């Protein structure tokens, strides 16, 4: 099969699985997850083959795999959609394939496959566990299977389809389609337990917030299409189109068309990747099941945002001459850097294990956006991949932890314990070794533990780029963020795994099934070794072994290959210091937190801690700024005044007038004239019939007589007319 055809088929299986499960196999849980995982496996195989083929091609950036078909007839010619595999999408396909497959497998265990059905589980609520009797007659509280098991797999199947579609597509339109599909799926999956009000709220919040970004992105796409007449990446990124875009001013804030389009598209990315100021939906998205969190934060959506930004990189830095940022890039870099720091600060003060990871995700994405902003294309892509691996690992690990603690909760029966609160954990190192070690690797990677973890290399490259191109503000912000990152990572690890168990549940937590630990191990391996593909050439000692393959490969995507920055010790030392220092501090502060104690940082930070803990009241701010006005607008202005008052008034007036008119027609015209005429015809016909019907006696002989008389008449007439 030609590789292009294969690319076409990569996104197909999850979609097929979605429909199959939803339409046919909804009753059968085993069949459902078999179909889903099988589909994921198919896509995974396809993407691996594609990736391998891509590796085998020299100069893939110049000669990518591309094939397209005419889809929509537009004013002149056709709107073509198609698939494109260049180094960037190949790499993305690689980690998407892995993470998606891992998450699918993980989901089987996470949703308690093979456990009995819950005692009082209802669709739309988390499984509350079931009582099972062992052979000795002792009844245990064991986890119960998810009531909507099949539906879950259907949803993540659709989700995977969206992601694959977005990755392989060669034009903005299909990218946007996949983008929206993922938006829908995130809504469905965050609100998966729809009986929980918080889940419903979170789902709506995520949906609306991302819509804000998507609308702007759609604007950008439309603008781009009207400006260039095409949506195909390679056509857009051709020299003359870019030059034309750069030279034509948009007539808005003195921006050029390229700049305006870039900012519009970037707003879409902000929404998707939960950058400030649209970051608020991501922490609440933790209401969904953990694989969903991993899906959203590691594999799919947020990466999709960054991926889109990277995709449009040639457009973003179209008018960039190497130093001195364009307005668009300034905005991007600023938002990225600020988000990185801001989210890190909030993350320090969170107690929910998944929320911490959520905020860390936001800040890491901030890193990437900032890198894009300063033009560090390869660094951004590198960090994207690495982050995908270790953040997926962390989320799955946290899910495993929560699962273990939930098991403990079920065992001990103390239902007031929140199994996601880190202060209810501790000492899980011995209970759940696999989870611990993998989580440790993930955490170190996140905090950029030197030399061995993947996060170190990617983050170091970003810092080096920032420093090398002299964006010191960005550099310092990112460095501070890195410090905080290391700090809260260590805080999390310490609170969760080290020390003594603070609750009975933590005591009785236990390791989870292989379907959940296997993905952890695999991802852990990746989050260590993947980083070695991007070691800079002139790194001391290690540089000589490295070919910096990643840089060569992904850099080939761009038309002019970005040169690697010359090496300097300052960013290296900085990253070393912040990473190790942050880790040490975190361990120092949280190494022995007694049970029921509050956060040690609370007192020293005081007011600031409260703000941090409450995420700087952004939700309340948005609630005051947007939600309430919108609600007021909807309920009072639109509903009461516009709808009830104005429109209904007009309508009622029209209706009344129509009624009057109709009655006039009825009384004045219809009844007397038309009906009168009709009745006249009818009555006269009836009268005529009554007067004539005496002829029809029903006696055949009289008929014959009549006929004969007539015949005689004619006969006589003709005879007299004869000559």
């Amino acid at each position, binding site marked *: 099969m030609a590789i292009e055809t294969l690319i076409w088929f990569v996104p197909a299986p999850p979609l097929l699985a979605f429909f199959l499960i939803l339409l046919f196999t909804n009753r059968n849980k085993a069949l459902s997850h078999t179909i889903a995982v099988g589909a994921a496996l198919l896509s995974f195989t396809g993407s691996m083959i594609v990736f391998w083929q891509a590796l085998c091609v020299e100069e893939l950036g110049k000669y990518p795999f591309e094939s397209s078909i005419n889809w929509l007839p537009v004013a002149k010619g056709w709107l073509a959609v198609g698939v494109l595999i260049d180094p960037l999408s190949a790499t993305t396909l690689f980690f998407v394939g892995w993470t998606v497959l891992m998450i699918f497998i993980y989901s089987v265990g996470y949703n308690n496959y093979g456990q009995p059905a819950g005692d009082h589980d209802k669709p739309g609520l988390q499984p509350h566990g079931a009582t099972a009797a062992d052979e000795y007659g002792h009844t245990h509280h064991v986890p119960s299977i998810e009531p909507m098991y099949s539906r879950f797999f259907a949803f993540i199947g659709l989700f995977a389809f969206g992601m694959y579609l977005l990755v392989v597509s060669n034009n903005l339109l299909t990218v946007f389609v996949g983008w929206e599909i993922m938006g829908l799926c995130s809504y469905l999956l965050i609100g998966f337990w729809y009986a929980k009000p918080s889940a419903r709220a979170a789902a709506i919040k995520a949906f609306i917030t991302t819509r804000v970004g998507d609308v702007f992105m759609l604007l950008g796409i439309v603008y781009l299409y009207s400006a260039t007449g095409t949506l195909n990446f390679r056509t857009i990124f051709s020299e003359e189109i870019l030059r034309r875009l750069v030279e034509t001013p948009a007539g808005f804030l003195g921006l050029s068309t390229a700049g305006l389009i870039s900012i519009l598209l970037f707003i879409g990315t902000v929404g998707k990747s939960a950058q400030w100021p649209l970051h608020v939906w991501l922490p609440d998205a933790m209401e969904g099941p953990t694989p969903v969190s991993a899906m959203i934060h590691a594999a799919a959506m947020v990466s999709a945002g960054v991926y889109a930004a990277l995709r449009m990189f040639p457009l973003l830095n179209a008018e960039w001459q190497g130093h001195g940022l364009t307005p668009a890039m300034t905005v991007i870099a600023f938002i990225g850097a600020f988000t990185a720091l801001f989210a890190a600060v909030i993350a320090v003060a969170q107690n929910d294990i998944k929320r911490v990871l959520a905020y860390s995700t936001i800040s890491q994405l901030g890193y990437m956006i900032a890198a894009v902003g300063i033009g560090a294309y390869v660094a951004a892509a590198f960090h994207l991949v690495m982050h995908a691996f270790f953040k997926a690992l962390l989320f799955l690990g946290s899910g495993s932890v929560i699962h273990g603690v939930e098991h403990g909760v079920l065992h001990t029966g103390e239902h007031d314990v929140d199994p996601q609160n880190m202060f209810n954990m501790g000492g899980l190192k011995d209970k759940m070794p696999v989870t611990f070690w993998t989580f440790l690797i993930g955490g170190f990677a996140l905090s950029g533990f030197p030399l061995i973890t993947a996060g170190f290399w990617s983050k170091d490259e970003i810092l080096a780029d920032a420093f090398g191109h002299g964006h010191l503000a960005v550099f310092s912000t990112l460095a501070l963020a890195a410090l905080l990152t290391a700090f809260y990572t260590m805080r999390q690890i310490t609170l969760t795994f080290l020390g003594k168990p603070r609750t009975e549940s933590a005591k009785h937590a236990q390791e989870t099934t292989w379907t959940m630990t296997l993905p952890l191990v695999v991802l852990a391996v990746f989050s260590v070794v993947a980083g070695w593909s991007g070691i800079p050439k002139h790194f001391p000692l290690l540089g000589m072994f490295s070919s910096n393959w990643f840089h060569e490969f992904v850099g080939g995507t761009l038309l002019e290959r970005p040169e690697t920055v010359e090496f300097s010790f300052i960013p290296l030392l900085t990253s070393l210091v912040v990473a190790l220092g942050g880790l040490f501090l975190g361990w120092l502060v949280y190494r022995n937190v007694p049970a029921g104690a509050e956060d040690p940082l609370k007192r020293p930070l005081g007011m600031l801690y409260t703000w941090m803990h409450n995420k700087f009241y952004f939700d309340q701010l948005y609630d005051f700024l947007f939600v309430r006005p919108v609600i007021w607008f909807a309920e009072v202005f639109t509903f009461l005044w516009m709808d009830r008052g104005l429109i209904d008034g007009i309508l009622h007036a029209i209706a009344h007038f129509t009624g009057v008119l109709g009655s006039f027609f009825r009384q004045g015209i219809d009844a007397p004239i038309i009906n009168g005429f009709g009745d006249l015809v009818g009555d006269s016909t009836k009268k005529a019939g009554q007067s004539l019907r005496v002829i029809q006696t029903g*006696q055949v*002989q*009289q008929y014959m*007589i009549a006929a*004969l*008389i007539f015949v*005689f008449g004619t*006969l*006589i007439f003709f*005879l007299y007319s004869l000559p």
Partner: protein
Amino acid sequence: MTPDMILFLVIALVTLAAGFMVVTTPNIVHAALWLILNLFAVAVLYVMLNAGFFAMVQVVVYIGAIAILFIFAIMLTRHAMRDSGPRFNTDWPMAAILGVALLAALIWILSRWQSFMTLPPMLTSDTDILRQLGQALVSPNAFFIPFEIASVLLVAAMIGAIYVAWGKSGGKK
């Protein structure tokens, strides 16, 4: 006034008298008998027209089949026949007037026809008209099709008659 004229007048008288009785006699069985007599007279007329074959056919078909059918029908509907109602319906004068008028009209029209009083040509004895008739009935370039259609009509009539008369209480014959 040759004897055959006398004979013709006698036969014609019988024919018309029998026909008149057929349409006027109150007893329907007598009407059937008068009909038979009328048919006989007509057969004799055929003989006088040198159409002996048709005389025979007349006797076989009409007296042997049709008259018997009539009598059968009369007997099957006998006590409807027995109730001695008026023999005519209410507007029989109109019918009578019509009949007379039609007769007058026919005679008047015929009288305007030039070959009204033609005399019969001599029959050449060697021509066997019966043989010609038989061959004409079965020769494809003569009356083959009408003959076959007539036979089909007879079969259809038979089946239809049996079907129609086949009430809940058995067939007719």
